[in-house]
């Protein structure tokens, strides 16, 4: 067990940005929100999945909406409002909170209602990275109920989805509600048991994001290579290095889709990498060859400082390093790939695990 202090928030937000693979919202905003809440209510306890008791009721909370909107209409305590609405609806009290996705600002989201309500958070999440859609959680792949769900906006509106046929239906309905709420909202999900969390969550991910962030910060402090430092904490590989030469974006069906082109430098001189994203980076090709594909992680970081660059902050001219990390094991099973494999995003390629050599 450890405690998240104000100081840890910076490291977690950097690490969460790397694991966010371009999506998950701006971690800086999430960091400030968690900081303001912790300053007001005190530090938050983190429980390992081994610390959980069978009587625990663990509620997953998160933000939903468009990252581009989230840096302008910044969130408040909507996830606390959603938690309270869910507790009232079910007449139960949560005993711990868990992140739906460790990538991006959602990694810090549970800390806000946790600080306000005095509840601990669990060192685990439902993705081990970031994904664009609600149903893409390890929890649901392995049988955890996805309803009821409570959604709250900043204006005081709350919606409950008591029942839905599939997690995909929850996603569709929740996203429509979110667009009406102004594309930024927070939700709370039906409570899980300790066994459900142990069996279906990606474990130790809050600790991993903290350590990743610390490795980047230490490398910058000591003038050593932040890319190497990250790869030591979380094994993966450098997929590409170069300069962003073109950027194409469109927002369709509620998602920021697009494609970024990187002109190679150094070892990659004379070639071009294209990365397609739908909130998160999904597929990376050098020329026409796929070198990394979802659910493996594709992270774009600043070549010199190692700091993650989210898709909405990508700009022409940036010098970037593209990193690949293997997906958590829960995603590379047949069941996992049915939900987050390349075909789920419209790519007609087979998933081949990232070649780490």
């Amino acid at each position, binding site marked *: 067990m450890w405690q998240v202090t104000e100081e840890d928030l910076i490291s977690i937000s950097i690490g969460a940005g790397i694991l966010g693979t371009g999506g998950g919202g701006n971690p800086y905003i999430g960091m400030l929100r968690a900081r303001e809440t912790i300053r007001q209510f005190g530090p938050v306890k983190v429980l390992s999945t081994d610390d959980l008791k069978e009587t625990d009721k663990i509620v997953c909370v998160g933000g939903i909406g468009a990252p581009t909107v989230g840096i302008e209409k910044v969130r408040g305590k909507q996830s606390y409002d959603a938690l309270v609405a869910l507790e009232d609806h079910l007449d139960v009290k949560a005993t711990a909170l868990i992140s739906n996705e460790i990538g991006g600002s959602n990694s810090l989201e549970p800390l806000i209602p946790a600080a306000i309500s005095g509840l601990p958070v669990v060192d685990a999440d439902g993705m081990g990275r970031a994904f664009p859609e609600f149903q893409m959680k390890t929890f649901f792949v392995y049988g955890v109920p996805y309803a009821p769900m409570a959604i709250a906006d*900043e204006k005081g509106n709350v919606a409950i989805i008591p029942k839905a046929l599939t997690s995909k239906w929850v996603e569709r309905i929740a996203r429509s509600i979110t667009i009406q709420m*102004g594309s930024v909202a927070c939700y709370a999900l039906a409570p899980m048991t300790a066994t459900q969390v142990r069996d279906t969550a990606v474990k130790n991910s809050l600790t991993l994001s903290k350590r990743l962030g610390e490795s980047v910060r230490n490398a910058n402090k000591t003038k050593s290579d932040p890319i190497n430092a990250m790869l030591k904490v979380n094994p993966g590989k450098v997929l590409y290095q170069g300069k962003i030469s073109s950027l194409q974006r469109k927002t*369709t069906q509620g998602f920021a889709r697009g494609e970024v082109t990187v002109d190679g430098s150094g070892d990659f001189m004379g070639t071009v990498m294209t990365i397609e994203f739908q909130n998160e980076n999904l597929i990376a090709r050098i020329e026409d060859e796929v070198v990394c594909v979802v659910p493996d992680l594709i992270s774009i970081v600043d070549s010199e400082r190692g700091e993650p660059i989210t898709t909405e902050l990508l700009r022409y001219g940036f010098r970037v390093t593209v990193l690949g990390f293997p997906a958590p094991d829960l995603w590379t099973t047949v069941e996992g790939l049915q939900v987050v494999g390349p075909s789920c995003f419209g790519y007609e390629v087979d998933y081949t695990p990232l070649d780490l050599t």
Partner: protein
Amino acid sequence: MRIGIDVGGTNTDSVLIEGTRIVKKSKTTTTEDITSGVRNSLIEILPSSVKDLGLDAVMIGTTHFTNALLQRNKLAKTASLRLCLPATQMLPPMVDWPEDIKASVKGYTYLVDGGFEFDGREISTLNDSQIRKAAHDMASNGVEALAISGIFSSVDSSQEQTAAQIIREETPHIRISMSHEIGRVGVLERENATILNACLSTTSESVVGAFREAVDGLGLGSTLFLTQNDGTLMDADFATKYPVYSISSGPTNSMRGAAFLTGIQNAIVADIGGTSTDVGILRNGFPRESTVAVEVGGVRTNFRMPDVLSIALGGGSIVTTSPIVIGPESVGLQLTERSLLFGGSIMTATDIAAAAGLVDIGDKSLLSNISKVDVDKALKMMNYMTEEVIDRLKFSSDDIPVILVGGGHFLIGNKLKGASEILRPENGEIANAIGAAIAQIGGQSESIYSLTEMSREEAVSTATDEAVKRAVSAGADPKTVIVVELEEIPLTYLPSNAIRVRVKVVGNIPDIS
């Protein structure tokens, strides 16, 4: 012919340039009233008759506003009004500001109803009486300047304009900056930049006015430009309203000037002025721009700016002994009155350098009370401060050339950790003025395009053509115009896809190319 002027905290430098040839240069002292200093500086470089000079433009770069922020000096008592409720209240204005600058601008913050959704719906309607109440509160607190920031004002600026109108009705004397004119999407950073602009707005009127008086007074009759942080020019009227755009133009000018003078395209440039030292990296002749949010005086903004670190070390930095402390206070433009060398009573970094024989100015006999031990310690400290900042900018352990420019270059020795060589180019003390004189003309366009009627490529090229047209009509040579920034932002979730395209181009003034 062009004139470049750099008005620093201590010195005013001027240079008359024809093509790439430096015709004449001058270095004079910045005066308290600014006008007479610029005038004195200009008189030194101008021929007796200005009639046949064929002057194209006067370009002024100034660190005035940067220094005001760094020193928290003469900042207006500023308020921030955010049109947002009930959204965004967890992170109020200035939530991420350092306490000292927050305190020095007083930082009254008001959150009121308002703001837009991304798709143009109102989050809530403006509440007239809330804004009037805030205005009364500002008036009773003696607020001088106000930043108005509305959520998604980039999509619809009408609420910011209405709120400004209401405030003007109640308190006509408050200077107003509106966020939709300053920055882009990202409320905290845009709001921060708007507040910085507001807190500089009282000084900008007097400073730009003083520049104009000096130039007009000499009958130059040519266009007056100020340089912006991206190395391009803005005219004087624009500069009065948007002083924040001049932030970091000093470092940009000195780096561009250093590249021009040395012919070296990749190096660290340290510009040592009277009050501060700015250190940045030249890459292919241009300052490397920061890829992350840029802090100005410790405040995060989303400007595209050169990646520059500033430290409070300059020729006028006040030195105290036992223990040795250098800065952050500086005697600034009173160097020739208050420093020991000139019969004053305050020990400055320049006194230390003169005592060590690194520079020959003033009356050295007045330095007899400074011990050799203190001189050595102070010099070591100044080198160390510079090495530290060079090291923070570098991203590899490889040594790199270091170009020392600016009037205070003599403060730094000939050996620096991390430097492969140290260059002090001739005319380096006026690198800033040279950089201003070779500044380029920019053009920008920003518009919304529906992709049902055109392709993305057509939208981008339409926007680019418009930006090029603006740059050319502002005096840029069409052959030299290049795109330096291109941004596309998806606007809505509507099925008819729309994007906002923002393009920025720069080109040279014809006689330079």
